């Protein structure tokens, strides 16, 4: 008879490799009225420390997990319920939850980190797949990123969709040697990836360079793309922070890389040791420097973007969302202005270029 008005807050799964997380500190107190995106609790994993934001609105009736507790994903952290639900009902709900909760076993049939590889478009591409809904979403990372960068988004979107995230050629653990580094070629590679997995049509969600690639794919292959979401996207205007792009290509050490990565976010605390190490490990692989140099040449010249697909938006007969962080220091949020009326535009106040990481709950809601 458990009350349908009671909503659990559970340990999130941030990234495929996350098995457990540590509760660091509660930022909301019992009795607080939460709305979507409110900061609830700081959680630390092997990979990243971040603030868990409210996924649902409601009153935080009970804090279950205490600071310093290390709990598996899905474990009960707290309980949201409206005022009319009695304390006894909350207690009963918690008892019921704890009785039925089983920590998830590591998924079988996948690599230990949940990633898989497929040959497509002349490349070996690494990707991950979450969820099994009829709706199909493909997440395209930005310049220098990889599939793992969607760690706060992929799981949430997979609640009612099949969500793929792939490493573009030259990135992550995909092939590093490029046949061609143009945005058009990378867009064709995404379509080849869809062919290889027999995906007829998908929604493309692209961040930064991935946005330009998504848009290019929709222009070149209109029957393969059912919707677009462009986050801090390239291809919608001329300005770009060339210092970041060129610095990222040149940086070899932690000391050079850290200030660059800090430009990606409004809150520099998000850029921790593990994140910097992961980027440096990627950059040290043979062929990455050449690939990044070539890809950068494919969409920028000096401090200007050379691929402008803005004029194509009007002609696309699909739903298009544009999302930006107001403090984006890589591609200015002004590129979200003046778009055709059919485009749904959201500028989230106070966040940087990695808005899908910094304001994950809001972005996930917009993409849901």
């Amino acid at each position, binding site marked *: 008879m458990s009350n349908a008005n009671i909503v659990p807050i559970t340990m999130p799964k941030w990234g495929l*490799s996350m098995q457990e997380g540590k509760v660091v500190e509660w930022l909301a107190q019992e009795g607080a009225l939460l709305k979507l995106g409110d900061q609830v609790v700081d959680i630390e994993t092997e990979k990243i420390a971040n603030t868990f934001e409210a996924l649902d609105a409601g009153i935080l009736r009970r804090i279950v997990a205490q600071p310093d507790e290390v709990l598996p994903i899905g474990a009960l952290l707290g309980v949201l319920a409206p005022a009319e639900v009695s304390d006894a009902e909350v207690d009963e709900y918690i008892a019921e939850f704890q009785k039925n909760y089983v920590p998830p076993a590591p998924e079988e049939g996948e*690599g230990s980190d949940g*990633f*898989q590889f497929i040959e497509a478009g002349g490349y070996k591409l690494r990707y991950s797949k979450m969820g099994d809904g009829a709706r199909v979403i493909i997440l395209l990372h930005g310049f220098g990123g990889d599939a793992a960068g969607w760690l706060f988004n992929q799981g949430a979107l997979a609640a009612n969709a099949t969500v793929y995230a792939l490493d573009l050629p030259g990135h992550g*653990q995909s092939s590093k040697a490029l046949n061609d580094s143009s945005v058009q070629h990378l867009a064709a590679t995404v379509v080849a990836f869809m062919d290889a997995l027999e995906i007829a049509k998908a929604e493309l969600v692209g961040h930064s360079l991935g946005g330009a690639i998504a848009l290019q794919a929709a222009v070149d292959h209109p029957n393969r793309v059912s919707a677009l979401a462009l986050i801090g996207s390239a291809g919608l205007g001329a300005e770009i922070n060339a210092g970041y792009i060129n610095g990222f290509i040149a940086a070899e*050490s932690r000391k050079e890389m850290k200030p660059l990565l800090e430009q990606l976010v409004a809150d520099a605390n998000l850029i921790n040791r593990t994140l910097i190490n992961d980027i440096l490990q990627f950059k040290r*692989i043979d*062929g990455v420097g050449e690939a990044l140099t070539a890809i950068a040449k494919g969409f920028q010249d000096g401090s200007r973007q050379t691929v402008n697909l803005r004029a194509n938006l009007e002609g696309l007969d699909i739903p298009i969302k544009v999302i930006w962080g107001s403090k984006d220091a890589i591609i200015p949020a002004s590129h979200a202005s003046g778009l055709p009326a059919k485009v749904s535009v959201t500028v989230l106040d106070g966040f940087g270029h990695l808005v899908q990481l910094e304001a994950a709950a809001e972005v996930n809601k917009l993409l849901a």
Partner: protein
Amino acid sequence: MARKITYQQAINEAIDQEMARDENIVLMGEDVVGGSGSDGEMDAWGGVLGVTKGLYGKYGDRIMDTPISESGFVGAAVGAAASGLRPICELMFIDFMGVCFDQIFNQAAKFRYMFGGKAETPVVIRTMYGAGFRAAAQHSQCLYPLFTHIPGLKVVLPSSPYDVKGLLIQAIRDNDPVIFCEHKVLYTMEGDVPEESYTIPFGEANIVREGDDVTIVAFGRMVQQALKAATALAKEGISCEVIDPRTTSPLDEDSILESVENTGRLVVVDEASPRCGMAADISALVARKGFSSLKAPIEVVTPPHTPVPFAGKLEDLYVPNPDKIAAAVRATAGYNA
């Protein structure tokens, strides 16, 4: 699919990938082929612990067994490097280096300088070091401070499977002589290692763990010991930053000094003998350039100044362990001027 392999496999893979890339790379040393022509598993054993197993079948004469004459084959490797090849020379135990100091200290290390920059000596001398193997005083030493002392040599102490592959590829591609020191106890350590080739620059320390109270600088095998101590100390509320310099020459002084600037307390952990070793060197560096940040005396954790004992119980007492490291951290954390 993150892939886990051992430290030993990572060394083999680095040599394999580099030899496939550049035909000027040759491998030479005692038993690096090892018993070719025997049956099955015994065929081409690949070094005393099998690290180079499988390479002879792929690269044939580019893998050369040498006589038991370190002064001869190390000299040959140095000469070959000066005249166009890129030899990887395996000198089984670092303890045996004494017989080829001239070839290393006075020839390889000096060629670039003595020939006005016109000569390069791209040789890698791979060697095993360290205690913990019940191998007694003549096969257990940590002699890397001797090489660190000599200008013209680069000295590498990889502490994990990921690092050993990237640092060895970097060493092979480097145009100067590199002394590449592999701790024999780490050979079985497993970790994530990319299948692709990659390099790790020399002189870039790895911040293995972040912390705010005490900086622990540890070398080679001691990095894992320091991490164990740091995990235990975290439960007591002491937050340790663990720094692995990765190379003793060049040395990433900045990362050490910046960390001590933040913590104000330093513990150096070195498996080498205490006198004129890395613990003394790092302590002097921080005392001189980081004095104003220090809140407590620097602590060092090293073996006593004795040969490595053969008796197992004594050898265990000799090597720094997490308990000794934790005690040193508590001493500096609890110090009040």
